[in-house]
C-alpha cells in the first residue's frame, strides 16, 4: 500500500488518510460573475500533473498539504498549511 507522510505523525499507509481535493483559490464571491463562479464550483484543473492537495491524517485529524503527481502517484512533499509560501500555489 502506498505510504504518505503526515507532517506530524510521520509515514503511514494511505488508508489512514482522507483525500480532501485540490487546493485551489476561491474567487472573490462579491465580485465574481455567475460564469466565473460556476467555473470555480464545477470545473477542475483535471489535467494530470503535480498538484497541491488537502489530505487529512484521520486518526489524529491532522490536515496538511501534499504535493502529489496525479499521473505517477508520487508524493513529492507534505507540509502543514500555512507553513509554506502560498504564492507557490498555481492559480
Amino acid at each position: 500500500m502506498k505510504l504518505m507522510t503526515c507532517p506530524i505523525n510521520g509515514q503511514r499507509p494511505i488508508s489512514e488518510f482522507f483525500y480532501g481535493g485540490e487546493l485551489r483559490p476561491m474567487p472573490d464571491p462579491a465580485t465574481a460573475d455567475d460564469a466565473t463562479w460556476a467555473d470555480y464550483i464545477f470545473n477542475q484543473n483535471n489535467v494530470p500533473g503535480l498538484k497541491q492537495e488537502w489530505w487529512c491524517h484521520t486518526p489524529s485529524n491532522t490536515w496538511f498539504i501534499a504535493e502529489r503527481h496525479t499521473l505517477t502517484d508520487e508524493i513529492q512533499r507534505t507540509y502543514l498549511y500555512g507553513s509554506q509560501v502560498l504564492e507557490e500555489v498555481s492559480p
Partner: protein
Amino acid sequence: MPLRLLKFGLSQTYPEPRMFRQPDRLKSHYDVVIIGGGGHGLAAAYYLAKDHGMTNVAVIEKGYLGGGNTGRNTTIIRSNYLTPEGVKFYDQSVTLWQDLAEDFNLNLFYSTRGHFTLAHTDSALRTMRWRAEVNKHFGVASELVGPQEIQDACPEMDLHCGGHLPVLGALYHAPGSIARHDAVAWGYGRGADQRGVEIHQQTEVTGITVKSGRVTGVQTNRGNISTNKVLCAVAGSTPRLLDMVGLRSPLYVHPLQAMVSEPMKAWLDAIIVSGSLHVYVSQTARGELVMGASLDPYELHSTRSTFDFVEGLCTHMLDLFPFLSHVKIVRQWAGMADMTPDFAPIMGKTPIDGFYLDSGWGTWGFKATPVCGKTMAATVASDRPHELIREFSLDRFERYDLVGEKGAASVGH
C-alpha cells in the same frame, strides 16, 4: 453443430479475412476524426458510416483497439437508472445491444441474467423503489423485491451478510445482462472498417488546431490531419485532450479496479450488486467470477492495482457468499474512470465548433456503448445534439442544471 463451424473443419486454408485493416499512413484530410479506439469511438465510427453515409472517417487510437475501459470493465448492461433522461437513454442502449451480435455477425456473448441491486438499509430501499417507479414509467422492467424473491433467485446468498448488514430487499431488473467486452470493440471495428472507416492504432494525438473557435486539424505522432470535425471519446484521457483545445470540464479521474477468480462450475446466474458492501459480481460463460467495488478514493490517472482493493472486496464477497472461501483470485486490474459531479455523462457539442465530446462515463460507459455511438454519430453528422443526449451537454454545469442521477449515488454501477 452450427454450420458456421463446419466451414472451419472443411476448409483447406483458414477462411477468415482480417477484421480490421492496418492503413500504412494517415490521409491528409478526413471529414471526421474520432479520437479514441474504444467501444464508444468505434461505435460512433460505425454509425457514422452505417446511418449517415460518412466514411471518410479516421479513428485514432494511442494503444490498441478496446484496450482502455472497454477491455477493463465488468461488462454489466442495464437501464435501471433514476432520471427520465437516464432511463430513456440506457433503455435505447439495451434495445440496440439485443440485436448487436446479429448485426455484427459476431457472438458478443450477450447474456441476459437479471440484475439485483441489494438494499441493506431502509434508505437504500427507498431509493430502489424510486428507481423502480421511474423505470416502470418508461416501460423498463424493474421492480422492488423482498428477501424471499432474492433467495429464490440466488439461494446461495447469505442474506444476513455475516450479521453486519442484512439484506432487506433489492431492485430487480430482469433485462440486466453481461457481454464479452472485447468482442464489442472488434464488432464495431470490423463493421466500421468494412464500410470504409480507417482505424489507426498506435497513433497518438499530440495537438488539436483551433482557429477562430473552430476545429481545423489534428496533429499526431504519425502526421497531421486537416478536419473540421473531431469527436473526443477517450474516457480517462479526456482532460488532456480538452486542455489541447483550451476547455475546462468538471471531470475528475479516479481508478476503478476489478478482479477475477479462477473458473468454477456455473452456479451464479444473476448479476448481484450491493452498494453498501461495495460489491458487484457476475459469472462469465467460462465460469469465472468477475467482481468490482467502488472508485478508488482519490484522483489518479493510472491503472495501477492496490492490494487493499482485493482485501476489501473479498471481505464483502464472503459476507454475501461465505462458501467462496476456497475460491482463488487469479488477477486484478484497473481502468480510469472519468467522473462527473452529477454522475451523468457529458455528451454533445462544446464551445469549440466541430469539437464533440463523449465523456463523463465514470463507471457506466460500457453499457452505453451502442446508444452513445448512435447518438454521437447523429450529433456529429448533423451538428445538432441528438434528442436523447440534450440533457447531458457540457453547458449544464454553468447553468446549474445538473442531471439528478446522483440521487441514486449510494447504489451506483
